[in-house]
């Protein structure tokens, strides 16, 4: 089925398609449409919609619902995302599957509620205290909003980890044709109804342990404290903690190849390259066309996964071009990754513009490229 719809609605449709049957959230511009759409659709599918008293409550409610066995999600923007960080840390520590959509807006603090930005990248990856990792996906079109939300649920169920879909106001509100497929591949969490295997350990560091079901007399202990493989709290020992946190981190790192998604365009004659994500990737594509018209071949990497990152596509471009430009609607966040990955293969030039929701126009990207090439 095809519909002309916004990125926000497409995220919601993707969630429903992936089997999401629980939504708890708090309204916040520019993500509220996701919530309102779920309020309309979920109950009709027998799912549960709940408006919480704030974002802290929302993230904790979906943690409870996930442990109850339902695929759960919430949607928010910067200020609400900040409030949810502790809850996300808890979900990582207890290996609770859930999906959070952050439709980015100008920050910090209240910023400009209705204006797009890309300033939550580092926060999405690192916002929790302590050692932790999760997965961050970044759509750059309404279609990708749907596809990547489905993917987010699948990854979250398979790896028993929260997944962030990092959208922005431009993508969230723009309207394009979206194909809602009849069938999508759905991954359900592995469950266990007995305790033959410990619920918080896996011999294979790439795999999450099966999730036990509550209310079956298994006497499961779920805790945010450091715990052993059976969930028993151990706030003293070195070994218990190191083993746990090593496994939580490796679970994401070792699945990088599996989870990493990107778009790349790179020809033999590329002289300049771009690395970007989200709505800026659209402008980059436009810039590449304009440059080609002027006889300049440009390469680009559009990152659809912002964490974990596989370096290869960016390295390939770096080995060919004189410079990589990193346009982003923030004061410089993705550029740090690119600098690290590229090393001294070529120069890395940031292009930062944020405020008023003004996109980075293809013409601005072209100007920067021409400036850099000289």
């Amino acid at each position: 089925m095809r519909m002309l719809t916004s990125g926000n609605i497409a995220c919601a449709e993707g969630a429903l398609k992936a089997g999401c049957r629980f939504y708890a959230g708090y309204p916040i511009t520019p993500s509220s449409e996701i919530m309102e759409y779920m309020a309309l659709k979920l109950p009709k599918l027998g799912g549960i919609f709940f408006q919480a008293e704030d974002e802290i409550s929302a993230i904790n409610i979906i943690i409870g619902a996930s442990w109850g066995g339902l695929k759960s999600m919430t949607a928010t923007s910067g200020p609400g995302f900040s409030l949810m960080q502790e809850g996300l840390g808890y979900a990582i520590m207890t290996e609770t599957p859930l999906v959070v959509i952050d439709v980015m807006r100008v920050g910090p603090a209240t910023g400009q509620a209705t204006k797009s930005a890309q300033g939550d990248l580092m926060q999405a990856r690192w916002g929790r205290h302590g050692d932790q990792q999760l997965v961050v996906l970044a759509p750059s079109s309404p279609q990708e909003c749907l596809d990547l939300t489905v993917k987010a649920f699948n990854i979250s169920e398979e790896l028993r980890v929260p997944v962030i879909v990092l959208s922005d106001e431009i993508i969230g509100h723009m309207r394009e044709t979206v194909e809602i497929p009849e069938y999508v591949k759905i991954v359900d969490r592995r469950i266990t109804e007995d305790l033959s295997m410990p619920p918080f350990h896996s011999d294979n560091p790439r795999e999450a342990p099966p999730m036990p079901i509550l209310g079956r007399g298994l006497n499961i202990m779920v805790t945010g404290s450091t715990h052993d493989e059976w969930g028993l709290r151990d706030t003293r020992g070195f070994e218990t903690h190191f083993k746990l946190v090593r496994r939580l981190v490796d679970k994401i790192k070792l699945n990088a190849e599996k989870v990493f998604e990107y778009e790349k365009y790179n020809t033999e004659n590329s002289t300049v390259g771009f690395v970007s994500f989200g709505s800026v990737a659209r402008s980059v594509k436009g810039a590449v066309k304009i440059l080609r018209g002027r006889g300049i071949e440009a390469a680009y990497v559009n990152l659809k996964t912002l964490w974990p990152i596989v370096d290869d596509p960016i390295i390939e471009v770096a080995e060919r071009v004189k410079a990589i430009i990193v346009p982003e609607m923030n004061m410089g966040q993705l550029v740090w990754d690119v600098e690290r990955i590229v090393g001294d293969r070529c120069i890395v030039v940031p292009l930062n513009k944020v405020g008023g929701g003004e996109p980075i126009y293809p013409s601005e990207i072209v100007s920067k490229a021409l400036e850099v090439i000289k």
Partner: protein
Amino acid sequence: MRDHFAAKYLRVELLPTSFCPGCGNGIVMNAFLKAVEELGYEDLKEFVFVSGIGCSSWIPNPYFKADSIHTLHGRAIPVALGLKLSRPELNVVVIAGDGDIASIGLEHLVHAARRNADLLVLMVNNMIYGMTGGQQAPTTPLGFETSTTPYGNIEKPLDACALVATAGANYSARWTVAHFHRLKESIKKAMGRRGFRFIEAVSPCTSHVVRRLKIPVSTYIKQLREGSVLIGAEEGIGKIVIGEYADRDEEGFMERMHKYINRLRG
């Protein structure tokens, strides 16, 4: 020979508990488990306990031989609510302290009471932040010396039971550990009820409250008994008001949610 009556509901291999000698947590555990026993439960299979952070939150996790979720500070109620919404057949019980429920978690408490969410919340009130070393709590009496009010508390304490009753909960009651029988009966009554049920159990914190008063804990417990008045009686200054603040039987949140979904599905 038999073991203590509560042993069948506990992870006895973890005893003795890490609670201080004379801590009221163990007495509250006894009252709760005696209520459970008298209601006919042979084990805790039908329950899921959710707790926050603090000494009282350690009651179900790890000591109860049951499913338990030990959450973030103040967030036991939302996690319990999410769990109950997704698994209505489970008996979801929150056990946590006054710092967890009535301070950082106060917002969630009020809204859950307002919604008449189908949860039983047992708040162990020792009038202090015990686990972190004896700091002031919103329930600390006026004038009391704590580690952050070393010259006397200048704030009036919160009456959580009254707040919960006003917000619309079906059941709200306060007892002390000195009123073992009444506490146990109140828990039994609340278990059979729908909607939001809130029971506050005033309890001694040996290390940070009783010790400051320089009396043995058994004397403190006697003082809890003598210093209590039943709700409705003429209040003396500085008395602990015990009794039932609310005793209603209105539709709980799950019922309303159920009707809402059924109406939409035709």
